[in-house]
């Protein structure tokens, strides 16, 4: 049987992952002949790490997902710096902008999303391109533009206080830029956070030198000067980074008459309304998914690779439970599930800790003993544990407070202040299973020094960790007899 022709449109996080997963299942291309088409001039890179590139902790070459030989090594027809112009569903081929065309047995749309540019006077030129001094925060090229433009110490405005906007802001602040975030909602990351958490987060970011203009729109942009806001105030900025959200790139799909809403509609097999065409990642719209994150894209790539290689024809994508993690140096924030539930909500158990002075905010929403939602800011251990409970559906421990604080409370280990308080059965020397009671008995039988206690009971003759404890008991015995 000759391999089926699979064409992937898009070589970003989703498309690259799909290619990897297909080759993992079909290393020699016996089942799938793979063509990947990417519009950027270079190999795929890890978009998640772009804020680290902006922050200067990672170099652009460090975030590459594939090396130059990747396509040749895996027998993949990789075409860079080009894109599809049109899909001819009847002929089952894709026409590219360079005039060539590629036939397919199965076509995968992994075209991602494009930055949404808010309607700000002067922000875009007549072609809809960003004006000078304004940059989106989406691609490696954007990062390079930001780094070129943002002189150390220069004022920068970030349009948008969502996840990516804050990551960019933190990265730039770390490089010494004076950053102002302009955000139309009343608090940052309002999709994921409640107002309390948003407040604490903004304060924490403020400590890193980031200013906020919340509940404000940018009305006008003047290159070299900055932004004028809807209340008439002014934000001085040499550079404006636009991170106001993204829109699924559905142009090709719409042109081909595929059903689309916010994104290209797909079912659990990631099929569009044309059974030979699939969509994954940001351009796809699946009922169980929030777009814009890498986790769903990778899980979809996994399922689709099973289907396209025939490894598991029953594989289905059922949605992703999303955990939002802000990747910003010095800030630990996780948000998941229902984060807007309030204490007193019916059927939900809601706990909340609000500690802005220390940059901590923790909220836990439980339903029937299961974690239904959480916001954990500045409590890293709690974030890790709560996420595990949420992902694995494990009932939350009855000690809710310990969970919220991220630390199991002391387990009552033998930590008695005085040897007198230690129970007789308490094991003093683990290596030789010697209890306090045995030491007391040995003392009474005539062992009247640490050395004699050791030779009578073997306490402290293993790893020696208990030597101090044995000395303490000997001193106590000497003082009481």
């Amino acid at each position, binding site marked *: 049987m000759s391999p089926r022709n699979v064409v992937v449109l898009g070589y970003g996080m989703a498309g690259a992952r799909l290619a990897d997963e297909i080759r993992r299942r079909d290393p020699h291309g016996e089942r799938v002949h793979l063509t990947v088409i990417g519009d950027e001039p270079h190999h795929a890179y890890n978009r998640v790490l772009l804020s680290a590139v902006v922050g200067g902790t990672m170099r652009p070459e460090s975030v590459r997902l594939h090396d130059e030989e990747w396509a040749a090594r895996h027998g993949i027809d990789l075409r860079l710096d080009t894109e599809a112009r049109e899909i001819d569903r009847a002929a089952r081929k894709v026409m590219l902008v360079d005039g060539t065309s590629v036939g397919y047995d199965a076509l995968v749309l992994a075209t991602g999303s494009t930055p949404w540019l808010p309607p700000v006077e002067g922000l875009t030129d007549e072609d809809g391109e960003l004006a000078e001094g304004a940059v989106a925060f989406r691609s490696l090229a954007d990062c390079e533009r930001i780094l070129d433009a943002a002189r150390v110490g220069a004022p920068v405005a970030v349009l948008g206080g969502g996840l990516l906007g804050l990551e960019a802001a933190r990265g730039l602040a770390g490089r010494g830029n004076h950053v102002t975030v302009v955000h139309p909602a009343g608090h940052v990351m309002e999709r994921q956070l409640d107002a309390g958490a948003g407040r604490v987060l903004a304060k924490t970011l403020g400590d890193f030198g980031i200013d906020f203009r919340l509940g404000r729109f940018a009305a006008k942009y003047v290159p070299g000067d900055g932004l004028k806001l809807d209340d008439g105030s002014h934000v001085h900025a040499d550079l404006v980074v636009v991170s106001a959200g993204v829109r699924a790139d559905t142009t090709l799909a719409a042109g081909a008459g595929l059903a689309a809403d916010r994104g290209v509609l797909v079912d659990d097999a990631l099929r569009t309304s044309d059974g030979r065409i699939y969509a994954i990642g940001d351009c796809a719209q699946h009922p169980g998914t929030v777009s814009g994150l890498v986790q769903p894209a990778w899980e979809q790539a996994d399922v689709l690779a099973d289907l396209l290689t025939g490894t598991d024809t029953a594989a289905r994508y059922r949605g992703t439970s999303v955990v939002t993690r802000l990747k910003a140096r010095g800030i630990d924030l996780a948000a998941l599930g229902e984060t807007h539930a309030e204490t007193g909500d019916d059927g939900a158990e809601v706990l909340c800790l609000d500690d802005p002075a220390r940059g901590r905010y923790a909220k836990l929403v439980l339903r029937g003993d299961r974690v239904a939602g959480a916001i954990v800011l500045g409590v890293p*251990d709690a974030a*890790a544990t709560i996420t595990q409970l949420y992902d694995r559906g494990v009932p939350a421990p009855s000690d809710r407070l310990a969970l919220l604080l991220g630390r199991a409370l002391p387990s009552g280990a033998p930590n008695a202040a005085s040897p007198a308080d230690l129970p007789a059965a308490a094991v003093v020397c683990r290596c*030789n299973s010697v209890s306090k009671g045995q030491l007391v008995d040995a003392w009474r039988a005539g062992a009247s020094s640490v050395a004699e206690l050791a030779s009578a009971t073997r306490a402290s003759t*293993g790893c020696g960790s208990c030597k101090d404890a044995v000395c303490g008991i000997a001193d106590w015995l000497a003082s009481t007899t």
Partner: protein
Amino acid sequence: MTLTAEPTTTTAVATHCPYCALQCGMTLSREADVTPRQFPTNAGGLCQKGWTSPALLRSPARLTTPLIRTGGELRPASWEDALDLVARRLLDLRAEHGPDSVAVFGGGGLTNEKSYLLGKFARVALGTSQIDYNGRFCMSSAAAAGMKAFGLDRGLPFPLTDLADADAIVLVGANPAETMPPFVQHLRGANAKGDLVVVDPRRTPTAEQANLHLAPAPGTDLALALGILHAVVADGLLDESYVEQRTSGFDAVWRIAAGYWPERVERITGVSAADQRRVAALLARSRNAYVLTARGAEQHATGVATVSAWINLALALGLPGRQGSGYGCLTGQGNGQGGREHGQKADQLPGYRKIADPAAREHVASVWGVPADSLPGPGRSAFELLDALGTEGGPRALLVFGSNVVVSAPDSARVAQRLSGLDLLVTADLVLSETSELADVVLPVTQWAEEDGTMTNLEGRILLRRKAIDPPEGVRTDLDVLAGLAERLGQPEGRFPTDAETAFTELRAASAGGPADYSGISYDRLREGEALYWPVPDEAHPGTPRMFLDAFAHADGRARFEPVEHTGPAEPQDADFPLLATTGRVLQHYQSGAQTRLVAELNDTVPEVYVEVHPDTAERAGLAHGDLARVTSRRGATTARVRCVGSMRQDVVFLPFHFPGDQRANLLTNPALDPTSRMPEFKVCAVRLTKEDGAE
């Protein structure tokens, strides 16, 4: 069985503990009591197992006569009858079904001489390829990963005492406070400096002592290593000049690790991103740092990849092959190191040679005085061998030396069933272990203090364990047994020496030129007390305490990064089996417990299996501390006493594996095997917890 006479010695003898790979120095007195001895690995310490080790020398449970199964029962027989019977049946089986119808199973507690002669016996006297040993269940994953990375595997490629000067130590899946307590002394330096890190899903006694305890979900250690490696690179801590000058393959590893940013890894492992970065930073800022792995990282169906991931981390930080830093594996069994070097492994010949390598076959065959083409090729790995017993095309007879497979192998109910399908099961044993109870013929053999032999400890140092007392009447050495059988199988007299030193002299020749070269080691040098770490290629050579200082053992002298991906446990939890069980050890018992359960002082302390469980998880199952619980997996069920432990993850239970019958933790375990090391997944399987029927 008869009561043995009180053993006597003429003088006190400097010896080593019969249990773990630490091989603590101790002195055996005339009265057959032990006292600890100053020796580098134990620094004068002994744990309860060591202190009580002589108990088994005078135990009424010792076997002192061969046993033959007649009329369904094991009955005393003479040595002549027992050996004649075994030899005759083996010859018949071979004549009828070919040489591979007979299999041999060895152990990591056997001396170098026994391991060596067992391999020779299988290949020469039986002509079978079917030999493997329980070391497969021990450190085989670390051995394979070490081979890939460094071109050579020696558990610790440096003396243990080097750890004293460490600024930071990361222990991955190691619980020495329980498994080799005197070892803990070597962790004090790092501990005092505030940088002792323990990676373990449980808050073990070792984790209790750590400055930082990371508790990944079982089966996610590999992802954790990737997350820390990511943090190393992202935070600018990569040792770029070392990576460039001493290694190859970093780029491919980074392409994978780049996809494991700490926040993503936190979600997989449950270890906070902040702690991952903390470990990266503390290792990078330390002048002397070590990464050490043990069974927790290794006993997985992805054990080799998991160890490779931690070695990658060590390489990225420039630790291996630098004095005062490094990577090492904490070998478990007494002779776990030597046992893996001298040919009782399915794919191996003495000197850590490959049985498939024509030059190795030529060399070893010439030492043995047989044609190279008469040597069989590689055979089945341990679990595959056990699983094939009595099946179509599988072996029909099994000889077991130094192992209690019915307790220590995974999916042990299946193993017991396979054993019952054999035409002939023969064991050489000190006491009637659970495996011997199933045997057709049981041969009573000597133990540590009753025979000469060498052991290679966890550092790759060769130790002489001298005979101190006479064995009970009626007991023979394993070497006697092998020689007696070999002659009955038609081998020329003397080809299988019964004297340990003679056997060792032959082993030296067989190992000469191999990676684990013992040719320069003699009993005389060991008697003089020389500290000899292999390789020791000639008698003037001082040995090699520290390896890789100038070059790694690959042809280009570089260490290799190994690209590995996280895939997770072979059997994840689900609605039917919502908990993960992990298995391990307790201080008072050794391996299958066949020996330590007979020592009253040990057995009284921990007399039965227990299951550690979070109090909430117990309560949901209707169980309280002290109740009997039923722990069930897809393969079987174990009855265990509940121990509520507040520090347990709520979705994890722990059981020690040293107990017999329906207390066997290995009734639960998953025999999914690592593709390279063939290590079973002892450390994680899906289970459920219920009230034991009939419990109050």
